[in-house]
């Protein structure tokens, strides 16, 4: 058989299988690249994108299976109507760690916190904790999202969640969005072009995955550090990280001003990355960084954010010690042997805080965080300040 005929046969097979894989990927919902998952988002001329009101999908991976529904207000929560007289509202801003597509809504730390607060509230007073996290949002997007969407929820308390693992990088990249009239920096322009290209390529899920693979491969071949988010953990602070920290501080200061103008208070939650809690994860990533000539310092990201945000004088919960205490309690319980449970056998008593693959919180991680937040809000008087009996009616 001639080379030409072989080539034609090969091409036909590639096209046919491309179509089969394309159809399979479109029908399955096991990837964030799947159309069902992407349909949760819609373009936004100011923020870039946000959650599409009314969108819903079923998301299943080997580790979890959830139904995700976006309410008519554009957040992953139950419907939000006008605020009843005895209701006090807490909104939680943040990224995928807050939105938490890995767990059902009722198991997110926002809803668990709501349950905890209401369990000890005196009727008719009640609390509503609104999950206003959006996948991929950094401090800049959180601020803009508050302005455009969340402020309308009439919050009494705004909890801004800062993920120390990548928020500095994301803030530096998105800074231009704060002043839309400013000419976009080259990096942002190229990102914009990349976004347009991505939209074009979205027509094919197969191609999108292939492109992502190639991009990852090229990055790991050329860059000094394989993953950009790890930059905040390097011993040497890059200009991008330094700038990102400044932008984060400015965004949170503006958020506090906007909230205060609506008679709401602001508090911060510093979320650590899994590597800061999981020694195995840390050693693997440290090795990757070392191979690329850098030094990974486990807690430096948290310290950088704590230092950068301290001038704001906002009540801040650093989740790192909470998670570490929980992890070590789990480890010591595991060392003592397995503990039986009602649905079979638990191998090791301490449940994991993070999923293996996605590096997001497990239901247990959400529970630990909700308990820590509950305690933090009470200790810092953030609940009493917003409790109905302490608030003048005119202030609402």
């Amino acid at each position, binding site marked *: 058989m001639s080379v030409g005929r*072989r080539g034609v046969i090969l091409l036909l097979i590639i096209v046919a*299988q491309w179509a089969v*894989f394309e159809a399979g990927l479109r029908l399955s919902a096991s990837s964030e690249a799947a159309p069902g998952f992407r349909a949760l988002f819609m373009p936004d001329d100011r923020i870039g994108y946000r959650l599409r009101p009314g969108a819903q999908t079923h998301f299943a991976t*080997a580790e979890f299976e959830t139904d995700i529904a976006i309410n008519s207000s554009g957040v992953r929560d139950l419907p939000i109507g006008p605020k009843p007289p005895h209701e006090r509202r807490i909104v939680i801003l943040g990224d995928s760690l807050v939105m938490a597509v890995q767990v059902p809504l009722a198991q997110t730390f926002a809803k668990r916190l709501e349950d905890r607060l209401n369990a000890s509230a005196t009727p008719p007073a009640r609390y509503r904790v609104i999950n206003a996290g959006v996948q991929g949002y950094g401090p800049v997007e959180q601020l803009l999202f508050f302005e455009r969407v969340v402020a309308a929820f009439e919050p009494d308390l705004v909890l801004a969640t800062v993920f120390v693992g990548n928020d500095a990088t994301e803030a530096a990249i998105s800074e231009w969005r704060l002043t839309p009239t400013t000419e976009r920096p080259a990096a942002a322009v190229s990102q914009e072009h990349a976004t347009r290209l991505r939209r074009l390529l979205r027509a094919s899920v*197969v191609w999108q995955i292939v492109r992502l693979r190639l991009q990852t491969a090229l990055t790991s071949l050329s860059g000094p550090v394989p993953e950009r988010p790890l930059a905040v953990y390097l011993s040497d602070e890059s200009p991008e990280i330094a700038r990102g920290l400044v932008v984060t501080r400015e965004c949170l200061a503006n958020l506090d001003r906007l909230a205060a103008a609506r008679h709401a208070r602001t508090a911060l939650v510093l979320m650590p990355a899994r590597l800061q809690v999981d020694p195995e994860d840390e050693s693997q990533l440290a090795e990757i960084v070392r191979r690329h000539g850098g030094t990974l310092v486990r807690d430096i990201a948290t310290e950088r954010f704590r230092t950068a945000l301290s001038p704001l004088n906002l009540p801040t919960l650093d989740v790192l010690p909470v998670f570490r205490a929980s992890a070590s309690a789990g480890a010591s319980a595991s060392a003592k042997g397995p503990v039986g*449970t009602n649905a079979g056998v638990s191998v090791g008593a301490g449940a*994991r805080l993070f999923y*293996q693959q996605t590096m997001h919180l497990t239901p247990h991680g959400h529970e630990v965080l909700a308990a820590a937040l509950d305690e933090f809000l009470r200790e810092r008087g953030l609940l009493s300040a917003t409790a109905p009996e302490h608030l003048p009616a005119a202030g609402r």
Partner: protein
Amino acid sequence: MVFNSLHFLVFFPAVYVVYRALPHRGQNWWLLLASYYFYAAWDWRFLGLLIASTLVDYGCARVLARAEDPHRRRWILIVSLGFNLTVLGFFKYFNFFAESLHDLFALAGWQVDFITVRVLLPIGISFYTFMTMSYVIDVYRREIEPSRNLLDFALFVAYFPHLVAGPILRASKLLPQIARPRTIARAQIVEGLWLIGLGYFKKVFVADNLGHLADGIFASDASLTGPDVLLGIYAFAFQIYGDFSGYSDIARGASKLMGIELNVNFLFPYFVTSPQAFWRHWHISLSTWLRDYLYIPLGGNRGTTWTTYRNLMVTMVLGGLWHGAAWPFVLWGVYQGALLIVYRATGLAERLDRAAEMRRAAVVGLAWLVMFHLTCLGWLIFRAESATQIAALLGALPHGWTGHAEAWSRLGGPLLFYVGPLLAIQLLEVRRQDLMAVPQLPLPVRYAIYVAIGFFILLFGDFQGAQFIYFQF
């Protein structure tokens, strides 16, 4: 350097292009340099150990060949084996025995602190040490002539396709291929490329993805049901097979491209009906090494029934310990030894062979099902981190078989997705009893398989660069 790293994907083509352009001696020099670079890319400090092992065994074999006095010959052999076993013992087993003795004394109420040392396990040490030991033993037995060329011998030890995870090659197989000029046939290139593609498919699509499922069970703190445990063990069974046989396939494929044939290391091990057959099909280069240099010298099956059983047990326990310095590996060895003894004592192995010859499908099918699950039980012991975990997982097995359909959809679906394509290829190969069945299929069919494998790797492969499991051995 690992085969599934970008580093290797740049390294191998670069080595290969130069290799093809060189004459025979130049090729050997080039391969030796490349092999040392390959090893040093992991940790250059242990290159000295590899070179020392090469020099000691090269020298011992040369002196052995000249020596006639049996007493002197025995001493030379002892020097060589002593060196290799000391190195292996120090790096791999020192802490294990020190800690185990400490625990033993503690049980008796004595607090004796043995010195433990924090050392890295040199990658591939179990593989190349076994190769050089078998070489010296073969020379001692006068089964082969010693190599007279240090370059050839150094390449035999360090040849990068087999260096870190086997197959464990015999000098009689590899040295002649190194010593003589090589020609590369077109069939070797086709088969080599197919094996490399299949190896990557087994590693990044099958093994690494199933690794996440298995970890979800073996590294889980959550409550587990019977279906969770069973599917998790199935996942690990195919993970370890995909991982190790995938490595062997890439090694064989890369070597074929260079005109050097390596041993087949896996021959459909999950399609067998007895433990005897399993060890003829799983990690063949290790099991034949243990047979030739341990089981037979111990007396094999030439003594009484009980000495045969003892020899089987000793061989399998040491085989288990070869995999790592940990009690679960020892327990796994005991389990494998017990299986071999039970099948031998009851005559099951022979009866099943006869049933297969008589094509009694129901008997063979049932025997296969039992053997597959016995193998899986072995993997549970192998993968578990402690006896406590083994007990906990086995204790969970009977629970939750009703009303837990969620486990089947959460684990069963992905398991089928990652194992199904591999099984389809294997069934074809088993049916034709040919590991190279696919490259011989009609052109459109084999192209369809090549393209499908490419899509599976590209779209669903796990490219996190997880190390091959057998590197730690």
